[in-house]
């Protein structure tokens, strides 16, 4: 085991998987940049080690990056394409939504598209309205792709290895505000199966389902509230599609109360989705209304003051937990 940040864990997986399988290529804007390996240095060292035929710097051309990654995956490579910020999905959505996601289905099972799209999500870095969105609910709504959002370095390593080895298209969402979060990570390669939630901490009074960076907030809230005698169970689904709805329902059955914490905008969010699943299939377990803690229905502002107001806080999570517990 070594203490690694999320950023380091992702870099390590890319090295390991490229060494393990010659068909793995990394492509995108600035990925081969020898000085730092992209905006946050995630791909540092790959070009030196694996060469420019496998670590491919592209022009600023999101439709061609995503489309070519799909075409390369159809024809025998396992591309890891970088969509620098998930906001750029707006530039290239057709190639993901109408092409890659549908290849297998519309070709009657005759195609396999093992592509991984790594992309940065989230507010908190002052990156403003077009570099800070979450957007993963849009992708979860599309059949044919899988969506992953790790909240720590251990999961980032196991889930990214799984994404690269997976035979289906996977969008791997990296929250830019937690890249430096560290934890113990096994030195050897390993995978974490998709669709298996992690119980971050066990509790009996309320279930908090949190996604990506919000898991860290939920954990802090759980620690704070433990001192007040409120026992909080935090569930990190880790993969958004497939979603481990059974784990959520099982936890709810135990606690009877649910808070969902999601940095998405509120409508059609993961918070909405989890709430909907619970109302549909776990209504009898509920002893209190569900509370959703999300960003508001606004773009992400640039002002640090407004951004702080935008992103859910630990206090917001605590307030929601207190509310459902007091109901």
């Amino acid at each position, binding site marked *: 085991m070594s203490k690694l940040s999320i950023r380091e864990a992702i870099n390590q997986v890319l090295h390991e998987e490229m060494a393990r399988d010659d068909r793995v*290529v990394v492509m995108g804007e600035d990925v081969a940049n020898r000085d730092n390996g992209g905006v946050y240095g995630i791909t540092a060292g790959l070009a030196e080690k694996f060469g420019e035929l*496998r670590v491919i710097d592209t022009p600023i051309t999101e*439709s061609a990056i995503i489309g070519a990654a799909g*075409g390369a995956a*159809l*024809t025998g490579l396992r591309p890891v394409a970088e969509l620098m910020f998930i906001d750029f999905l707006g530039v290239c959505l057709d190639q993901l939504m109408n*092409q890659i996601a549908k290849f297998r*289905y519309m070709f009657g099972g005759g195609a*396999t598209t093992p592509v991984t799209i790594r992309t940065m999500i989230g507010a908190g870095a002052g990156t403003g309205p077009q570099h800070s969105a979450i957007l993963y609910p849009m992708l979860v709504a599309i059949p044919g792709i899988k969506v992953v959002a790790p909240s720590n370095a251990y999961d980032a390593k196991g889930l990214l290895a*799984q994404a690269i080895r997976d035979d289906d298209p996977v969008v791997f969402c990296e929250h830019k505000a937690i890249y430096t979060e560290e934890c113990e990570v096994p030195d050897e390669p390993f995978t974490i199966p998709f669709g298996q939630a992690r119980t971050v901490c066990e509790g009996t009074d309320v279930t908090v389902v949190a996604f990506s960076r919000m898991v860290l907030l939920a954990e802090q809230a759980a620690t704070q509230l433990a001192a007040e005698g409120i026992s909080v169970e935090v569930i990190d689904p880790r993969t958004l599609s497939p979603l481990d709805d059974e784990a959520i329902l099982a936890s709810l059955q135990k606690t009877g109360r649910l808070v969902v914490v999601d940095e998405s905008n509120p409508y059609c969010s993961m918070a909405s989705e989890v709430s909907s699943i619970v109302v549909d299939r776990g209504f009898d377990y509920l002893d209190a209304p569900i509370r959703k803690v999300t960003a508001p229905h606004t773009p992400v502002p640039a002002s640090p003051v407004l951004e702080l107001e935008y992103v859910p806080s630990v206090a917001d999570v605590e307030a929601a937990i207190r509310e459902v517990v007091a109901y």
Partner: protein
Amino acid sequence: MIYSTEMLYQAYRSMKLIREFEERMREEYQRGKLPGFIHMYRNQEAIAVGACMHLGDEDYIASTHRGHGHCIAKGCDIEDMLLELACKQDGICKGKGGSMHIADMSKGMLGANAIVGGGPPIAAGAALTARTLGNGRVSMAFIGDGASDQGTVAEALNLASVLQLPMIFMYENNHFAEFTRNPKPDGRIAERAGAYGMPAVTLDGTDFFAVYEAVADAVQRGRQGRGPSAIEAIASRYYGHFEGDAQQYRDSTELESSRITSDPIPKFLADSRCSDLETARIEQIDAEILASLDAGVERALAAADPLPEQLYSDVYVNYRGESA
């Protein structure tokens, strides 16, 4: 360039098969036997055939919504295609793709595509695979004049040029972007492609030999690792955008005359290079094609529809799967 008699018969057979396949599909469509939209390729047959005769199963093409000709020229099975057009369970895409999504990975056919301009980035990806593996394969994107205006095509041109991909941009300028005459003069599309730094030629797409010879150069260039090429082949569209479009937006005199002057099949047969082809053999090929279509259509129309539970399969290899 030297043309063997057998190769010329083969070219004739492919063009004629595309023609008769589509005419038969048109009839069945008008009889209400085929669902959805179908887009006719008539008078553009020399482009698909002249281009794909240079490609093997290991090479790649990305096609368009007007893709039947490309599929046939690339070797997709006719009977499986007929089943797919009828959306049957045993269709080439199990009835889930239909006319606009025929694909066969084993033939390097990466899909017809219902998004105008959707294919070129995918073809660039296939070319990237060939470049990465260094296997000498090439990838070709068929692109209509309408699609030539899409940003995805510009991005694919640029990527192919920057990475020197073994790719051919095979433009088919049929002068109509859906229901609107393309205002660009002939040759402008190739000019644009050339501006990205690749050889680009404009030629008569109803002349099989012109297409065949230009594609020979482009394919050789790709196989030798010398980067992408573009070809703008002009061939006026015979039918409407889709079957049922009466083309009232076209001048009927011009349309009628272009239908005759731009028919690639008589032009091919009248070419001096085809002077050794025997009428009896041509007639035999025609008869074989019609017989195979009769049998195929009969079988396709009688074939089983997909089962309701097949709705749910083929979305993922394994939705909740562990590592492969």
